[in-house]
């Protein structure tokens, strides 16, 4: 097992190096001069040259890359040109917001999707099954940002049940030691702040969770249908086991294998979707940050932010692979 993990980690190395080069070159290929963007319209030739020198933009590209990687390996992703704050500091505030949102979305998708798929399969071909099939098809056909807009319009603007933007109401003032606002509320033993944070998460999480929900429901349904016809399930029923026990121990457990993989594979989808969801609900997370950085040509932010997101994404995939190997004895580790 350990050897498997180490091997996989070694395989990650070339991917991460390639990725860092790709991101680095990409940022250089963006149109527009960051020094000019930073200084605005009143920039003079001299001040632009000064800024270029200050940020090392006048040196050859490969030297810039090596210098950058030396800093990255020391845990320094540089400073935002726009806000002038260290990027790692910005990430420590924004990444929790995105993880909280993605986590809430996944929770919604799993809690609703798995039972939905399971009962669809149990009543295969019935009204409930057909309704949930249609529903999940609609789920993957609705753009996230459109669903977000509709939810916002219906439940926040028209009915006033939920807040329209942000992560917490203006009147709440608690410390944020972790920047996971729900967790911070619990740490502060403040039920009002906790529920306020949860309240802000509901609509964005539903919008972001809709596609994973549809996918999880479909996969669960297909997996349960497959497993139900296996010999060991028939044997279990034939020997007179109560059907609830067969469902739980034999069908559900084995059907969960592909579902677990699919859940892991949603990480990239959630990060992509977070960019749009955060924009609609004005949530200060990684997605809205990167979208703003593109507009502002904030090179260091784009470089550091995307590199960070990609590393997280690669690691999540590794964890999925490893946990899959742990759950399924049929996966050979070599």
């Amino acid at each position, binding site marked *: 097992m350990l050897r498997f993990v180490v091997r996989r980690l070694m395989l990650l190395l070339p991917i991460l190096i390639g990725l860092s080069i790709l991101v680095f070159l990409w940022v250089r290929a963006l149109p527009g001069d960051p020094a000019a963007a930073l200084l605005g319209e009143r920039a003079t030739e001299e001040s632009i040259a000064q800024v270029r020198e200050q940020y090392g933009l006048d040196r050859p590209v490969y030297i810039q890359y090596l210098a950058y990687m030396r800093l990255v390996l020391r845990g320094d992703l540089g400073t935002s040109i726009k806000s002038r704050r260290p990027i790692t500091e910005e990430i420590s505030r924004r990444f929790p917001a995105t993880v909280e949102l993605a986590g809430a979305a996944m929770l919604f998708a799993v809690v609703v999707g798995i039972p939905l798929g399971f009962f669809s399969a149990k009543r295969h071909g019935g009204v409930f099954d057909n309704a949930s099939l249609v529903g999940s098809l609609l789920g*993957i056909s609705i753009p996230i940002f459109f669903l977000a*807009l*509709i939810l*916002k319009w219906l439940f926040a603007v028209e009915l006033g049940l939920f807040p329209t933007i942000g992560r917490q109401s203006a009147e709440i003032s608690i410390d944020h030691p972790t920047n996971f606002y729900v967790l911070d509320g619990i740490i502060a033993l403040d039920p009002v702040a906790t529920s306020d944070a949860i309240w802000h998460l509901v609509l964005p999480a539903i919008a972001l969770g809709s596609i994973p929900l549809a996918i999880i429901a479909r996969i669960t349904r297909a997996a349960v249908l497959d497993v139900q016809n296996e010999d060991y399930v028939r044997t279990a029923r034939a020997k007179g086991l109560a059907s609830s026990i067969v469902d739980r121990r034999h069908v559900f457990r084995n059907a969960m294998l592909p579902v677990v993989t699919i859940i892991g594979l949603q990480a990239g989808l959630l990060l*992509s979707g977070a*960019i749009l969801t955060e*924009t609609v609900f004005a949530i200060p997370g990684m997605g809205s940050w990167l979208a703003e950085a593109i507009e502002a040509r904030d090179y260091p932010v784009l470089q550091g932010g995307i590199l960070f997101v990609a590393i997280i994404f690669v690691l999540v995939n590794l964890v999925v692979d490893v946990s899959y190997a742990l759950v399924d004895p049929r996966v050979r580790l070599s």
Partner: protein
Amino acid sequence: MSVAQLESEEIQLEATSGLWSDAWRRLIRNPAAIIGFVLVALFVFTALFAGVIAPYDPREQNLDLLEGSCCPGPSADHWFGVDDLGRDVFSRVVYGARFSLLIGVVSVTVGVTFGLLLGAMSGFFGGKTDTLVMRFMDIMLSIPGLLMAIGIAAMLGPGLLSIMIAIGVVNIPIFARLLRGSVLGQKGNDFVLAARAVGVPRRTILFSHILPNSISPLIVAATLALATAIIDAAGLGFLGLGPQDPSTPEWGTMLTGTVRYLQTAPFLAIIPGLAIVISVLGFNLIGDGLREALDPKLRGRT
């Protein structure tokens, strides 16, 4: 008549129904796929005949219609109402079909072409080519799709062509992996070994034996990719990376400004959004239908 003759005739009878006619028969008996065809036909028809269907010029502003308030809702003159610059929403949605169809088709073509090339090469030649190509695909896949599309579109500068290229490039590793897997699966098959044994050149084996047999999963994936491409294009448009001329009636771009008018004119968001959902749903329904129809495990059953 000898037994052998009888048997060969029976086999002949069964063999007349090929994969495609078989799949087609299953497809047109699938009500969901039929609905998909209707929706896609509607979408394509609207895109092709936008000039005939739309009652107004989609870019023409008529601020007199606003009467100081945004925005007048659906009426007899303007079926889907008027937007914040006094443009007819119905005409804009109709013309928007053109852009979505164009973006979808071009970007999927880009993705399929390069993905097919890279995947087939990788699977067929194996060895160093395979390692090199697939490592590069892994790197591409390690950046979340929309983020990469945003990155490419930002690099090329906002615009229709950038969106098409961006979404196309994001699709390349998906098709490359699919093709590679498919080619690897075919390589060990008896008919490929037989062709090699009688000395058929490698290129001919790839193009006339392996690729034709990889085509059905490719068609399914391409149909579903069309659906995703339309959604992603709208997403890029929504984020402001769409056509540089903001008066272009692209569905995603149309949604961008509507956040401000959610209270007074929610139809401005709902109508282009529904247009996206309907066309995407159409491709998803066809894709699902095709997947079932082309599934070799289901062959023979109708």
